[in-house]
């Protein structure tokens, strides 16, 4: 699960400052998917950057799986992302030189810790299971260039789930896909989120997706407001 508590993030803009995230408080429980929509420039990407610990807010706290990310240094935040956060990028952002299987296995190789060697057999089993779950067993040894857009996005999702994340941060996963493939990906995401018990924040521009989520919020000028049923969101 994730808790954002009175989070504010500003960026310098010439002589002044732009408030990208304005006093946002948000709670997403394990297994729950919260959708965030809003116009371009409203602060959705900044919210995801803060939630995924890629950036530290000016004020407020971000707690992921019980760990206060705002109190951590750069290396500790990297470890938190590695162990508790799954990132599903807008574009699949797969590494061109790796096969689908290796895109998942790399999640076990992101440190120089010796114990990663001992974890390799388990990581391989986990990767193969996840590829099966996303229907890509037959494509495990294909590189991104040999996969379709939908297949690449499935690998992207499987990679995000590789390390049993407490939080899944999903950034417009269907933007590069046609409607049919987009629906498949959303179905897959919702199913896997529920099955794996991850708290999921999903940013999307597609209104048709929102009714299927536990709650949906709208971001306007850095502020979160309820869009449908604000089950767990508390706009500031």
């Amino acid at each position, binding site marked *: 699960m994730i808790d954002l508590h009175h989070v504010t993030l500003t960026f310098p803009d010439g002589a002044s400052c732009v408030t990208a995230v304005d006093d946002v408080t948000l709670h997403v429980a394990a297994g729950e998917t919260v959708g965030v929509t809003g116009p371009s420039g409203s602060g959705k990407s900044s919210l995801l950057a803060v939630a995924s610990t*890629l950036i530290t807010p000016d004020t407020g706290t971000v707690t992921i799986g019980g760990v206060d990310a705002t109190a951590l240094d750069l290396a500790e935040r990297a470890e938190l992302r590695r162990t508790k956060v799954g*990132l599903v*990028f*807008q*574009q699949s952002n797969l590494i061109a030189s790796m096969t689908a299987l290796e895109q998942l296995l*790399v999640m076990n190789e992101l440190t120089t810790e010796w114990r990663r060697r001992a974890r390799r057999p388990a990581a391989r089993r986990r990767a193969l299971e996840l590829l099966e779950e996303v229907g890509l067993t037959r494509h495990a040894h294909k590189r991104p260039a040999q996969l379709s857009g939908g297949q690449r996005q499935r690998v992207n999702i499987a990679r995000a789930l590789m390390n049993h994340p407490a939080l899944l941060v999903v950034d417009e996963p269907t933007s590069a896909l046609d409607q049919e493939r987009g629906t498949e990906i959303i179905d897959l995401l919702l199913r896997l989120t529920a099955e794996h018990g991850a708290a999921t924040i999903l940013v999307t521009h597609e209104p048709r997706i929102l009714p299927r989520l536990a709650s949906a919020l709208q971001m306007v000028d850095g502020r979160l407001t309820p869009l449908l049923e604000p089950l767990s969101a508390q706009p500031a």
Partner: protein
Amino acid sequence: MFVAWSDLRVAKGRFTLIGVVVTLITVLVTFLSGLTGGLVQQNISALTSLDTDRIAFSVPEGEPVTYADSAVTEAQAATWARQDGVRSVDPLGISTAKVSAGDRQATVTLFGGGPASGTDVPPAPGRVAITADTAESLDLEAGDQLRIGDASFVVDSAEGDAWYSHMPVVRLDLRDWQEITARNGAQAPFATVLAVSAEGADFTRADGAAGTSSEGLLTSLTALGSFKSEIGSLLLMVVMLFGISALVVGAFFTVWSLQRRPDVAVLKALGATNRMLTVDALGQAGVLLLVGVTAGITLTALLGALAGTALPFVLTPVTTLLPGAIMTGLGLAGAGIATRSITHVDPLTALGSNR
């Protein structure tokens, strides 16, 4: 090195290209080192094999100390021999001469007298010791006659390898050398230098007393004009090749790192540490350098074996493994500087990046 290996497997063309460049530079460096070693050996091996601690020169005041201009006297030798701590003083005469056997001729360096060289002692009067190379070129063997000017000598031994100033050395008795030098019309010197073996001697005092200028055996090599300029030029070339190698590897990994920035941003966003990414990138450079340098050394060894005696080429760990190790170290340093940019990649760029 998970990422590094996948890159190496997939970007074969790119890595083969830079690997071939590393191999060729290694061949250049090691071949030049081998040639340098060979040329050095042909310049000084007769001196470095002498069983002595110090060489005493005597040159006119104000003149630079060189083997070519040195001429020591018997009195100077006697003064050195009287010094405390001096075990032995062996006058050594050095000159160039033409030697002949039948209708064959060769230009050699004569070493008259001097200390032992390993197990070889200077021959008895009327006898000479020639190298295997001279024996082959003059078609001589032990017991044959060799002429130096109008004097005839018996070949005492025809083996080994001893060079001075790129000429094979013929060793003979000091008095024979003095006679040959006198017959050439020059004022007969007693010897060219004194080879001194000593322990705990005061060399400054000995030099002052004898009017000589002495140097340790190795530092005395700088008194060989051709050696200093030759080794200087060759080493400069080797050093420049080392620099080029570091620059080439550094430049390749700079471009490679720039191309990898989007991937690095994704890996960092996923939780990769800077340490992991740096170790991975340096590991990749290490593999590339190891393969390239090993291939280069192997090629040099093959070329050196093919060159045989046609070139003054020395194939030893010092001329192959040492330059190879230096190249690998410098290449890694170049790659290390180039891959520093990896640590500055902002993982935030992976979010919403359009690739």
